[in-house]
């Protein structure tokens, strides 16, 4: 913890810089420079890269970028700069293995490498807001998934019928309801000690602090996400959350999504930046894991060819060069109840797993519309992840399969079907998928198996 105070102090004493200058004069030129210096080049034929050298060059570029640019505190207008020796120290001390959750439901979460035969750690999450009435059945549906090592619930927009407003007492009511219902769902499925990442309904630091409770709320065996601002920015509120989580003792996930088409530009820049975010998470957010969701500016998704390439390269860069744990968060174009979304889920789970990542599955329907997500999409991504790890699939084989998966949906990305709501795909009473969606799942799984995935079951 001693490092935390040193680092937070730099938010008040580091070099002064305005955000516009930071983007234009510091971040963008340096990123351009390292892409050139390390010869990083997007390869459309390899949505799953099998090139160790490119992964290592991306890692080096990310280190250079991060050490030189630092992170801008947008409240104090100062750059937090990390020394090389501090980065090395942090990397050396990264444990690479945590026991999360508690009792019989506790799980080891361990670092992986590309083509690792150990399966990825799987967090199930729809990453979307939902109606208050369906929060419990929807969360039960996620918690009961056999491959779920952890769950992050949907987000509430209302509490007791009142619209939740950030920073208001209704936010406090909403986050309490969220935390308690999530805990209840885990208990209802017989997994009371399950590792939970919570609570997404809490925007303010105040609301995050309010749910830290060992009985009904977020336990210290659970985790919470603290977001970074785009790109390489941090705010005081996030630092309050960091200090609280460290004191309380829960795990911290640093939530970052570099934007394809944003200040980082295209695939090469986003790969370098997203890798650099892992260093920011480790040193500044004091994160125990990175929650990584690079996304395409126009589509808010990451299942396209260029996105898969940069996901594969980022996770290989990180997993080959450090023990940092990182979840690869799917952002899919199509919605639940469509074949397209299942192919996208398979491609995302496969690419991330063979690249050494862990899985956080999955946002669908461009992560835009209330109630649009179900655990079935996540199930396919994670079943694919487990299976390809167990069968020892190489990146070269994975690339062939991902190219075939892409052929199923690539052309339809811009016009992806919105699909259906959770309550149309699941029976709310039993929290089970409807038979038509389960049949569709089975059909797509068969086709994915025929492409070369040996499903464990």
């Amino acid at each position, binding site marked *: 913890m001693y490092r935390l105070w040193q680092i937070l102090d730099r938010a008040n004493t580091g070099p002064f810089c305005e*955000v516009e200058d930071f*983007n*234009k004069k510091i971040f*963008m030129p340096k990123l351009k420079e390292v892409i050139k210096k390390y010869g990083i080049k997007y390869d459309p034929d390899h949505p799953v890269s099998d090139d160790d050298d490119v992964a290592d060059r991306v890692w080096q570029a990310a280190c250079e970028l991060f050490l030189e640019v630092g992170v801008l505190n*947008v409240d104090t207008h100062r750059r937090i700069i990390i020394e090389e020796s501090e980065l090395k120290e942090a990397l050396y001390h990264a444990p690479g293995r945590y026991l999360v959750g508690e009792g019989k439901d506790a799980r080891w979460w361990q670092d992986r490498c590309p083509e690792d035969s150990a399966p990825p750690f799987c967090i199930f999450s729809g990453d979307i*807001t939902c109606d208050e009435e369906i929060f419990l059945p929807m969360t039960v549906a996620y918690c009961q998934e056999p491959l779920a090592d952890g769950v992050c619930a949907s987000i509430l*927009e209302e509490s007791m019928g009142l*619209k*939740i*407003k*950030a*920073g208001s007492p209704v*936010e406090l009511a909403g986050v309490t309801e969220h935390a308690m219902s999530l805990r209840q769902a885990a208990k209802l499925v017989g997994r009371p000690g399950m590792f939970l990442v919570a609570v997404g*309904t809490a*925007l*303010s630091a105040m609301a995050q602090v309010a749910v830290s409770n060992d009985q009904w709320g977020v336990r210290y065996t659970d985790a919470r996400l603290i*977001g970074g*601002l*785009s790109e390489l920015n941090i*705010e005081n509120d996030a630092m309050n959350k960091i200090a609280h989580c460290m004191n309380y003792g829960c795990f911290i996930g640093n939530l970052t999504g570099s*934007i*394809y*088409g*944003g*200040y*980082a*530009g*295209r695939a090469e820049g986003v790969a370098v930046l997203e890798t650099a975010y892992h260093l920011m998470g480790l040193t500044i957010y004091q994160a125990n894991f990175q929650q990584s969701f690079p996304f395409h*500016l*126009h589509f*808010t998704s990451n299942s396209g060819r260029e996105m898969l390439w940069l996901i594969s390269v980022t996770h290989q860069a990180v997993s080959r060069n450090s023990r940092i744990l990182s979840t690869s968060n799917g952002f899919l174009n199509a919605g639940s109840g469509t074949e397209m979304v299942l192919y996208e889920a398979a491609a995302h789970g496969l690419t991330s797993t063979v690249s050494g990542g862990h899985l956080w599955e999955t946002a669908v329907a461009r992560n*835009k519309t*209330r109630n649009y997500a179900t655990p079935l999409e996540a199930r396919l991504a994670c079943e694919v992840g487990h299976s390809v790890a167990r069968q020892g699939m190489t990146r070269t084989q994975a690339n062939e399969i991902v190219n075939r998966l892409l052929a199923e949906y690539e052309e339809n990305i811009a016009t992806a079907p919105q699909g259906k709501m959770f309550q149309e795909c699941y029976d709310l009473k039993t929290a089970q998928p409807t038979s038509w969606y389960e049949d569709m799942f089975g059909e797509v799984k068969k086709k994915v198996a025929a492409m070369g995935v040996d499903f464990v079951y």
Partner: protein
Amino acid sequence: MSNMESLVEAVKAGEEEDAVTYVKAVIEEGHEVVNIVASLTDGMREVGDAFGKMELFLPEMVMAADAMTAAMDELKPLIEASAAGMVAKGTVVIGTVEGDVHVIGKEIVVRMLRANGFEVHDLGYNVNTLDFIKKAIEVKADIIGASALMSTTMPNQRELVKLLTEMGCRDDYHVIIGGAPVTQPWVEEIGADSWGENAAKSIEILEGIAEKIGKNNV
């Protein structure tokens, strides 16, 4: 290529130094300042369209906008001296509402507005409702734009309209709201004026407003 064409190309490519060189050349050649600005604006519109079609992205847009600004700086003395008395298409106060840190969408809109000749005062994110209004009064804005990406911060868009009404200045501004969860019914429910569904649509709407208030002279 004429110097005028080279100027437009330099702006589109984000070549700041070239843009300055060529703008000096066209001034030397004696072109009407109104025509120079019109060519530059057309060039930037092409940049905006290319962004919409995903042919280019934010970094290229930032560079083009910078080159445009550099060229406009050279033209400033001429614009001020010109009888046409050119003014910005409209003054916009914009920000992301209180409690919300999502800025990318708003930043794109800001850049596109600037590129299209609007005067923009960007208040950043986590902006208190009253601060929007105070700034709008201070700079005599025509338009207030508020971004909210979350259901939990959207109420602040309603608050903005309400406060404007209570302060008796609702009719002084066109209120446009945006952000992924915003919809036309929400615009109507809270009594805002328009919905900036995406950057291109927002520009289209606000150009219409500029026309209406008689500020579309470029």
